[in-house]
């Protein structure tokens, strides 16, 4: 029996919908308010008044090394929240998850680029965030650049990149720095057809080399093509998991039912 590389138990994330403090009109009030609410925040007391929503609730699963899991579900179902928790961008409100490997993530087009750093420097920065040392990154450098097709823009600050270049380089870094776990959010949806194909190929290759991939996508074709298994997230819960074909079928049926209901 293989040991899972990701183990999540009853993960939940609650968001508070409270209105943000309106700008205090005077300096005196600003000081008073900020001091006052600081005390309240530290004691954790000012939140219960606000209405809250569970963006994610009671999500448990295990992912094996080399497994590719596609996450499907409607907008706002909690797919991205799940990935954000696993990428440690935000902490869960309840539950726990253990990751038994180095995690690379690409959450949306924004990536984790520093706009003032050049493409070259961003490759090293991202590698450093992954916990790699410079010689490891240097070893992978040419491959990343070739994959992302940014040879001529290596010394251009990332802020001058087109969104396509941003995406290509972001994906190339995340996929080539050999993480044990790769988290991808809506990457395939944004990429153009030819790069999408390249991404699919790379994800398959990474999986063959033992990387586990958890990806969120509205591109159901890609989910079907890539995944060994699918998660269907609905209203913050892991509604179903299993064969991609079956789940995509269920999902499309639900969407159709909802569409006809709202007509």
């Amino acid at each position, binding site marked *: 029996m293989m040991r899972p590389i990701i183990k999540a138990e009853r993960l939940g994330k609650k968001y508070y919908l409270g209105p943000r403090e309106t700008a205090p009109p005077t300096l005196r009030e600003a000081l008073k308010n900020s001091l006052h609410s600081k005390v309240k925040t530290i004691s954790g007391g000012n939140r219960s008044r606000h209405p809250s929503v569970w963006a994610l609730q009671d999500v448990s699963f295990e992912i094996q090394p080399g497994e590719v899991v596609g996450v499907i579900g409607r907008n706002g179902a909690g797919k991205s929240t799940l990935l954000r928790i696993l990428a440690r961008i935000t902490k869960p409100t309840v539950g726990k998850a253990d990751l*038994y490997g180095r995690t690379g993530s690409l959450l949306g087009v924004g990536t*984790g680029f520093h706009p003032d750093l050049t493409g070259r*420097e961003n490759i090293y920065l991202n590698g450093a965030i992954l916990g790699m040392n410079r010689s490891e990154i240097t070893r992978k450098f040419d491959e990343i650049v070739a994959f992302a097709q940014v040879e001529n823009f290596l010394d251009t600050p990332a802020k001058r990149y087109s969104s396509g270049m941003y995406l290509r380089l972001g994906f190339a870094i995340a996929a080539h720095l050999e993480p044990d776990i790769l988290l991808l959010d809506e990457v395939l949806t944004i990429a153009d057809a030819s790069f999408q194909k390249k991404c699919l190929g790379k994800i398959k290759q990474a999986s063959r080399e033992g990387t586990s991939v958890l990806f969120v996508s509205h591109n159901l074709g890609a989910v079907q093509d890539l995944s060994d298994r699918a998660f269907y997230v609905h209203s913050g819960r892991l509604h179903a998991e299993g064969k991609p074909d079956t789940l995509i079928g269920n999902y499309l049926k639900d969407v159709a039912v909802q569409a006809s209901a709202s007509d």
Partner: protein
Amino acid sequence: MSTSLNDAKALISDVSPPAWYRQVPAEPVTRIRPSKSWEHLDFAELWAQREVFYFLMWRDLKVRYKQTIIGAAWVILQPMLITLVFAVFLGGLMRVPSDGVPYPIFAYTALLLWTFVSNAVLSSSYSLVTNAHLITRVYFSRLLIPAATVGVRLVDLVVASLVLVALIVYYDVHLGWRILLFPFFVIEIAALTLALGLLGASLNVRYRDVGTVLPILLQVWMFVSPIVYASTIVPPRLRFVYAINPLAGIIEGARSSLFNLPFRWPSIITSVVITLSMLIFSIHVFLRMENGFADEV
């Protein structure tokens, strides 16, 4: 039961893992848990991510010193211009006591350190907001962001110290053994600045008006600290109150070490104790609020 279990085990051991199979470690690399009320500082993680610290610092320095002349000049000009103004009005016209040291070098020493404090506290308070795009996309210890900002200002301090060296030569200041303690005061002032920067940064994520209040507080702080005057103008019976401001002990100490004057240990020790307590407190506040940064920034 036991036989079937053994059969199963034998079956499993027969199947060797595929060639690509990566060894999954027994212990998780990352444990994701809800936030606790007291988060511990993860030194191992900070060490593993030291390159990130280096990159964050290096990027800021690159932007600053890109046009080398202008960049470095501005860093030097800021404390110099202020020194010039105070030297003319306080030192020259009002003859403010300066411990028997020529007023310009007396003031420049402190203004050099003060410029560092003021700039570093302000920029590290804004650092999380200006790095929001990183915080919401990738994970690394958020502590590295304000820390790197303080590091950048520390480099500025070193650059601006060149003028201090020139002034030492010009005024023919005789250095003594006490100069050996000068680096200690620089470290202490960096620790104090980091403490305030962390506090400012975590508050600024939630309350954007912190940026409005901070410059005013900093201005007040400058004048209650012995920067453009010597702390000897404070009556001896009030010195212990005056020493509650940790900056007082640090600035005095730095000046004593430079001009080889006797150290006033009570205020120096007070400043060390207060600085350390503040650093521990603000690291705690920062780690506590760190969990919400990505949701709020």
